[in-house]
């Protein structure tokens, strides 16, 4: 694989933006400044970015409750996202959605989703639309090892096969469905994607902590699906660095587990190591990206604090096209 320097730097910038966005959220939530429930994607950045770097705005994705990474990777405006989480009328959803419902149709992001497993059927519909348009576009459902146990996901996979829709089911196995281990909850011998295979589609497996592996795998997956060969599925082995939700005491973690994950399975660290050892990028230019990203996040938070707030009149706006 030969990614250009610019493409590598862009991928790193995206991963780093997701990490910085969420670590800042983690801090601000601790301070009590942010309302509602927040689920952090930290640890899984290589998957969202390794998938979405192949896509343009006409390709569509449907995300999950753990959706910040998918939104950023797909091109949602970071400041608009932060303002949304702050509940401002300048947020991407005018303060009506919050963390779990960020969407931006203009970049092909059809919504994070508060209901585990709800995204896959929606993604199949978007894939049917892409097929009808005949421009070789695809639709991707991101699901976790929790959503893989929902009947909706099974229905969606079968329907995608039956209708030969250009849908891709990306399963991010972070080993935890909320607070329950996948070894308990996934009945198919700890293997999610064999289910997709049983539904009749071609499947792949890869290490989701290695951006390069994700990116290369997705090139094959997309070539298959864009070629009109029907849906496909891929399972990425990945890690969740924080709790199910912010505030989760994570008593289910093993002793030293998180330290080990941060030391051995941090996709950003792995990316830096691989990129610098292969002399693709230099440490100082990666550090430069880090600084730029942190400045962007500072600005996003400052802007969010200063952004306009909704008024009671906004409650009844946008329920219907014409409110009556």
């Amino acid at each position, binding site marked *: 694989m030969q990614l250009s320097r610019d493409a590598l730097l862009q991928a790193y910038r995206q991963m780093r933006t997701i990490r910085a966005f969420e670590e800042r959220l983690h801090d601000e939530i601790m301070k009590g400044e942010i309302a509602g429930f927040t689920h952090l994607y930290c640890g899984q950045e290589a998957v969202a970015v390794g998938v979405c770097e192949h896509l343009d705005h006409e390709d*569509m994705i*449907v995300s999950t409750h753990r959706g910040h990474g998918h939104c950023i990777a797909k091109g949602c405006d970071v400041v608009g996202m932060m303002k949304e989480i702050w509940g401002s009328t300048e*947020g*991407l*959803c*005018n*303060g*009506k*959605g919050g963390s779990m*419902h960020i*969407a*931006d*149709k203009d970049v092909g992001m*059809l*919504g994070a*989703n*508060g*209901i585990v497993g*709800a995204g*896959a*059927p*929606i*993604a*199949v*519909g*978007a*894939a*049917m*639309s*892409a*097929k*009808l348009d005949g421009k070789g576009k695809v*639709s991707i459902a991101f699901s976790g090892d929790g959503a893989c146990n929902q*009947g*909706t996901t099974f*229905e*969606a996979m*079968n*329907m995608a096969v*039956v*209708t030969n829709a250009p849908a891709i089911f990306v399963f991010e196995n972070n080993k935890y469905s909320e607070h329950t281990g996948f070894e308990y909850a996934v009945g198919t011998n700890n293997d999610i994607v064999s289910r997709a295979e049983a539904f009749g589609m071609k499947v792949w497996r890869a290490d989701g902590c290695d951006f390069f592996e994700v990116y290369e795998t997705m090139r094959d997956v997309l070539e298959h699906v864009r070629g009109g060969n029907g849906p496909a599925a891929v399972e990425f082995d990945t890690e969740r660095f924080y709790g199910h939700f912010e505030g989760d005491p994570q008593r289910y973690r093993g002793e030293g587990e998180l330290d080990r994950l941060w030391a051995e399975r941090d996709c950003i660290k792995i990316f830096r190591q691989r990129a610098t050892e292969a002399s693709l990028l230099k440490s100082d230019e990666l550090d430069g990206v880090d600084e730029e990203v942190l400045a962007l996040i500072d600005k996003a938070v400052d802007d969010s604090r200063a952004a306009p707030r909704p008024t009671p009149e906004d409650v009844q*706006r*946008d*329920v*219907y*096209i014409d409110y*009556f």
Partner: protein
Amino acid sequence: MATMLYRDAVLQTLHAEMERDESVVVLGEDLVGGMGTAGGPEAIGGIWGTSVGLFDKFGKDRVIDTPISECAIVGAAGGLALAGKRPVAELMFADFIGVSLDQIWNQIGKFRYMFGGKSKCPAVIRMAYGAGFNAAAQHSQSVHQMLSGMPGLKVVMPSTPADVKGLFTQAIRDDDPVIFLEHKALYGVEGEVPDGEHLVPFGHARLSRAGEDVTIVATGMMVGMAEAAADSLAEEGIGCDVLDLRTTSPMDEEAILDSVEVTGRLVVVDEAPARCGLARDVSALVSELAFASLKAPPQAVTPPHTPIPFARELESAYLPSPDKIVAAVQKTLNWR
């Protein structure tokens, strides 16, 4: 004006709208029928006969025959709508919404609001509802009371072939998600249907009988019963307004209040039980906003709070009837 069946008004509207707008897509189980069988596509043509000929004319990418997967059908309709199409999904029996409820309630009904008004979801979810065929508790229900309580959805219940054409055309062209409820006992009812373009806007009740003594509010199959009651009362010199709501979300509150201000008496006929339903909702609306006009307490003619029974005698006892409506009207007239 052409005369046609309620069922054919559905079918002809689908043909017309799919011809008019290539973004209209239909999907559902057995919508084509016969896929993967020796008989081949169109061996069935939809179990209600409301999709005959679509597959041959518009092809498999616009007429999508799906497996029995109600949640994925509605979810796919949501995805199609977000992606810019105008899907019309069929759930066959309204009773099957239970399987797909998350996609109706949490997804398509909320996209626009959750996304801050920056998306629209022009999806129509069609389903056949209602009792009268002794189909028992899981194939006879009226589900509008539950769906009308869900903000973001529009709920439509045509009672005549003309309104099927006008309201279904509006539903397909509407930019919000619409639940389109077709009463299965009305599929075989014939009526005059306007030729050419015919749209009926949502939220406008139809006055099907006019009188000054009592207001009767009804929807779907109940409209015919209310008309029969009104006609027999008219022979005794009692005049009734019969208001066919047409849509229960939005609901034409103004028409109800205007009528009750004249009559002072209200009877609400509904095919769903009264509790947490349309009958009590309309009664509460009138009590709240037109209390001074009331000459008698509002009456609800509804089934009891039970599942729908099977045996003929039991289903008849369960359902409203013209006689029960007449009795309720007389109760409002004889109050005190």
